[in-house]
């Protein structure tokens, strides 16, 4: 085997999440009441456009979740195969040119020279203090002062590639659509073009075009330049920002996933059984709620740090350690955030248990757990779905704040919070080192904004009472 797969804890949970999502999709296909709200989501223009952007993020996140260790070249033939200690992901392989383009220290976006002066030996042997040329960024240029033209040409070429890719992808998709509807390809194209399809394909295709053109232009430029500059140790900021996507997505999704079982079980039990069960569960969540969330997280992370610094031999590698800390952060964020969902579910279960069909089921002698599984759970699923989507953007934002206070993800892990944290002191520099902040801002803002817009669409589709109020 040329490589050894590595499954970190969060990887395993992400795969579980994907499996759950696929399973739910297959299940929902045959249940009209579950399909209907999703149809509402898909029929909204904002919903489709944000789905396209989100799928770009998710794709990068999934690529970054498949981890493995490469095989080292065997020292002698017939010797033991050894694997590199470094854990890589598919995304690392894709971004290898960016990973290897290491500079000495800061350099500005599209820069060709280092940000700080150094002693440079001239061809004639004299030594001058000047900004040295970068090792990778713009190193193909004869004259770095004429980079403007090269940048234009490269980005236009990238945009053209993006356009072609869009054309092919779009044609393929429309062909699939046409086949399903039993229409001819030109007919379908004109329907989509005029925006006369039930599902708003036109905004989806426009978003796809913008994203593909941007992605291809950025990819082409990134091979020649550091399009978002380099950081203090000379690492490409664009690479860091892309790597941070996985961290953000994991915090946003796994946190809700790990809290779901407790929230659903306790919330429904409290509402359904009432009496002392209700009292105990209410006491539990009021107690947890009354501890300020940040402080509970801080206390828990502090304890984790104590544990980790006292048992350094329990972790095989830095990556594993950082990964466990990420998982623990998700767990503790889940502990602080399940109470809201639990209370909502309790309220709904209280109402549902008085409904006629539950009373009828109880009168017919159906057991408690059968009633909960068959009559109550399906009727509160929309609340779960709305919470899952609504919480996502808040959690992504929370990661940045927590990492700033040093109680977030591991400092060695790529995350937007760590990017902000490490570059915030550089704001005092003259001229300002702004690009790490800008990159983190850009990637976070795009993700959170689309997530917020998507959450609104989902909420409207799942909760008809709110429709029209928005």
């Amino acid at each position: 085997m040329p490589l050894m797969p590595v499954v970190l804890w969060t990887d395993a949970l992400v795969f579980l999440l994907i499996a759950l999502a696929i399973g739910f999709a297959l299940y929902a296909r045959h249940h009209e009441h579950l399909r209907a709200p999703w149809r509402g989501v898909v029929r909204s223009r904002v919903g489709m456009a944000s789905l396209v952007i989100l799928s770009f993020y998710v794709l990068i996140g999934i690529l970054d979740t498949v981890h493995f260790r490469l095989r080292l070249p065997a020292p002698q033939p017939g010797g033991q195969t050894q694997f590199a200690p470094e854990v890589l992901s598919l995304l690392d392989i894709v971004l290898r040119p960016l990973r290897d383009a290491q500079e000495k220290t800061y350099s500005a976006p599209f820069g060709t020279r280092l940000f700080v002066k150094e002693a440079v030996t001239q061809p004639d042997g004299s030594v001058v203090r000047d900004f040295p040329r970068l090792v990778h960024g713009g190193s193909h240029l004869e004259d770095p002062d004429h980079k403007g033209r090269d940048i234009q040409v490269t980005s236009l070429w990238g945009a053209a590639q993006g356009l072609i890719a869009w054309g092919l992808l779009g044609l393929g998709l429309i062909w699939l659509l046409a086949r399903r509807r039993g229409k001819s390809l030109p007919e379908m194209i004109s329907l989509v073009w005029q925006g006369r399809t039930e599902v708003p394909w036109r905004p989806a295709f426009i978003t796809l075009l913008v994203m593909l053109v941007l992605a291809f232009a950025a990819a082409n430029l990134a091979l020649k330049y550091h399009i978002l500059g380099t950081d203090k140790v000379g690492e490409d900021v664009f690479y860091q920002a892309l790597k941070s996507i996985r961290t953000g997505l994991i915090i946003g999704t796994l946190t809700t996933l790990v809290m779901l079982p407790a929230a659903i079980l306790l919330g429904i039990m409290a509402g359904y059984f009432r009496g002392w069960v209700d009292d105990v569960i209410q006491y539990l969540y009021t107690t947890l709620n009354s501890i300020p969330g940040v402080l509970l997280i801080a206390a828990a992370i502090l304890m984790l740090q104590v544990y980790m610094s006292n048992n350094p031999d329990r972790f095989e590698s830095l990556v594993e350690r950082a990964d466990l800390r990420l998982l623990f952060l998700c767990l503790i964020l889940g502990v602080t955030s399940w109470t809201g969902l639990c209370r909502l579910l309790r309220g709904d279960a209280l109402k549902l248990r008085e409904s006629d069909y539950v009373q009828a089921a109880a009168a017919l002698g159906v057991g408690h757990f059968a009633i909960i599984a068959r009559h109550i759970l399906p009727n509160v699923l929309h609340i779960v779905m709305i919470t899952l989507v609504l919480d996502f953007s808040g959690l992504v934002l929370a990661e940045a704040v927590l990492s700033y206070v040093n109680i977030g993800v591991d400092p060695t892990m790529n995350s937007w919070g760590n990017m902000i944290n490490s570059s915030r002191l550089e704001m005092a520099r003259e001229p300002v080192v702004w690009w790490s902040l800008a990159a983190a801002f850009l990637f976070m803002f795009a993700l959170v904004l689309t997530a917020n817009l998507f959450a609104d669409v989902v909420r409207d589709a799942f909760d008809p009472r709110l429709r029209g109020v928005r």
Partner: protein
Amino acid sequence: MTAYIIRRLLYAIPILIGVNLLTFALFFVLNSPEEMARMHLGEKRVTEEAIANWKQEYGYDKPLLFNASAAGLARFTDTIFFERSVRLFVFDFGSSDDGRDIGYDITQRMWPSLAIAVPVLLVGLAVNISLALFIVLFRATYLDLGSVVVLVAMMSISGLFYIIGGQFLLSKLFHLVPVSGYDTGLNAWKFLILPVIVGVIGGIGAGARWYRTLFLEEVSKDYVRTARAKGLGERRVLFRHVLGNALIPILTGVVVVLPLLFMGSLITESFFGIPGLGSYTIDAINNQDFAIVRAMVFLGAVLYILGLLLTDISYTLVDPRVRLQ
């Protein structure tokens, strides 16, 4: 009413006991005092003697829950649990790792926290409510749609960027106010302006959008139709009737956070170097001073429960339909 308040206060006791047990478990059971000592002393190979010394110095050398070597009541009082956790109930927070009295520090540091939190709350309320009313006045127009888009975009920006952007613009570019710091008494105003502005702007996205939803819910109710039917102008309907009725959820939403204002904001205070309770907590987290963190957890829980109680009371005051029993 009085009976209700007393009962609610009694109900708070088991919750505070729960909070206390939880933090106790988190700080002393999951991590024994030995491990804490080892981490504080830093080095890998610490002698048993050094650990014993550290524990004695900070008073961690007692048994956790039950002291078998003592007699009578001291079996329970001469323990870490009693010394560290039970005493919190009488707001005796003990001393921090550098020997300062935590209770005194808290009373000193809560004023700068309030000096930021109260203006942010009041100005923010005024700005958000007026913005929301303005948007509702132009509801279902492009102005409404555009404002909602802007609000959602503002919501999507991390609070950190508001602070960094504010510091960069006002302090670095235009040199209007100092970047960070604090001064005593009234001289503090120039250090407070920027955090307050940043806090208000950072809260507009979520706040104004929330109030807009509240107002829109009210606008679709019957009494609004009645008011319009009897010939009242749109502005009068909005400002007199809708605003008045929407004040109930707004007020109760504000009351619940009132006590927590004392805790200050972690991020704002540490960015602007304001010596409030927020930066106190952050410093404690970074210095791994567990005594302070535990005190703040307890204080936060007390204030949260107080907020819930105040909310219930304020409901009865503003909404005569609600009766407490």
